[in-house]
């Protein structure tokens, strides 16, 4: 448990640093891959909503600190995103097609985070064109996230190997 917490903290911190200092400079139109969100989705899918929410909160704090943006804003969005990723992971844990599970999670949460960001900024009084955000930011970001989703999940799965399952229907050992 503690090891998982430390690994999640390191993974999110590394992802946040890479996102801000590296990935954000590779733009497609005006969007870019969001490896921080991908990391949260993977943590949520692999370790559940509690891990996802905490990792999201930590990631948001880091991002807002490193970019000197409004503290708490990104935390709010990413906490929700991490929690939702965990819930999706729970609800689809019996799903046989892992790729579809990952891709659907990435699609839903990318859209949710981008729309949430837009709404929060609109509430805070910033002006933004919905059409521009959707066309120039959301769609390129979504495309890049989908491209990276599977390899990133494979990487995260190495960091967070799935817990060994108990054999179902096997003979119960009763201590006598």
């Amino acid at each position, binding site marked *: 448990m503690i090891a998982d917490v430390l690994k999640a903290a390191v993974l999110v*911190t590394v992802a946040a*640093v*890479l996102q*801000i*200092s*590296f990935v954000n*400079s*590779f733009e497609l139109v005006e969007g870019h891959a969001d490896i921080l969100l991908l990391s949260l989705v993977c943590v949520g899918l692999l370790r*559940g*909503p*509690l891990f996802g*929410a*905490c990792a*999201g*909160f930590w990631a*948001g*704090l*880091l991002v*807002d*600190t*490193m970019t*000197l943006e*409004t*503290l*708490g*804003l990104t*935390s*709010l969005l990413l*906490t*929700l995103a991490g*929690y939702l990723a*965990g819930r999706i992971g729970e609800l689809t844990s019996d799903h046989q097609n892992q790729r579809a599970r990952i891709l659907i999670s990435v699609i839903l949460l990318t859209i949710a985070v981008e729309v949430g960001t837009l709404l929060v900024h609109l509430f*805070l009084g910033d002006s933004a064109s919905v059409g521009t955000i959707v066309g120039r930011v959301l769609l390129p970001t979504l495309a890049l996230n989908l491209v990276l989703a599977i390899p990133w999940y494979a990487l995260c799965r190495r960091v967070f190997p799935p817990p060994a399952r108990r054999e179902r229907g096997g003979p119960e050992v009763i201590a006598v």
Partner: protein
Amino acid sequence: MARRVVAAVLILVSLALLTIYLREDDEGGLHAAQRLGLAVLSPLEVAGERIARPFQDAYGYVSDLVGTKQDTDVLEARIASLEEQLRQYQNAAEENERLRGLLDYVDGARFPDDYRPVVGRVIAQPANAYNQTIVVAAGSDKGITPGSPVVTDEGLVGLVSKVTGGEAQVTLLTDESAAVSAVVVSPQPSDTPARGIIEPSPSAAGLVLDRVDKALVVNVGDTVVSSGWTLGDLSSRYPYNIPIGTVTSVGRQDIDLYARVQVEPFVDFDSLAEVVILVKR
């Protein structure tokens, strides 16, 4: 249950941070904590940025190349568009010049009195060497009838052979069926100018003035014009004095009944764009 509580607490904490951060000034506690956090994290950012720099440079180089390629495409498209415009302007200028020439001719002294001009754009060139006809975009709706002479400001073109409502077929002087009564106009006028019939040359490009009396004087460089004869109720279809061409050679062989006079036409039949159809008033 516990995880929902934790998630709710984290969301509430986020909202609280957000609210406090927005309400306090730059010297507030959260701002100070953020600056401290940035100071702690900035080495990581710097390290990340240094690692990223070569990749960013490579990406920027490729992006610039792509941008340059796009700029080149845009400029090439612009050049093509401007070249097309230039061609259109050149065509318009040439057309303007041709029409001005026709207008000068129509308004000038050389234009025959008994006719009114109908200007027609050539819409079909001769289909082959055996069929020396063109089609112009003017027809019976403008009073054109079969037999109307067709000219340009340079000289005689031919004769209208068929007419529809909006088009007319013109048989050129170079067609083997063409025959025009013509007279040679010399700088040294004589009592009896040489007359003959203009026909297409059977052996060479150009025209030939046939049936010219060998005794009459014809010199190279003389001008050949339509003779426009009248005989009682009969008259030539071509009015008098429409330039046809220049004499380029004169042959007088003993075995021939007539002199053979080669004529270089004034009109370039291969590049007709507009013509004037002469319609009887």
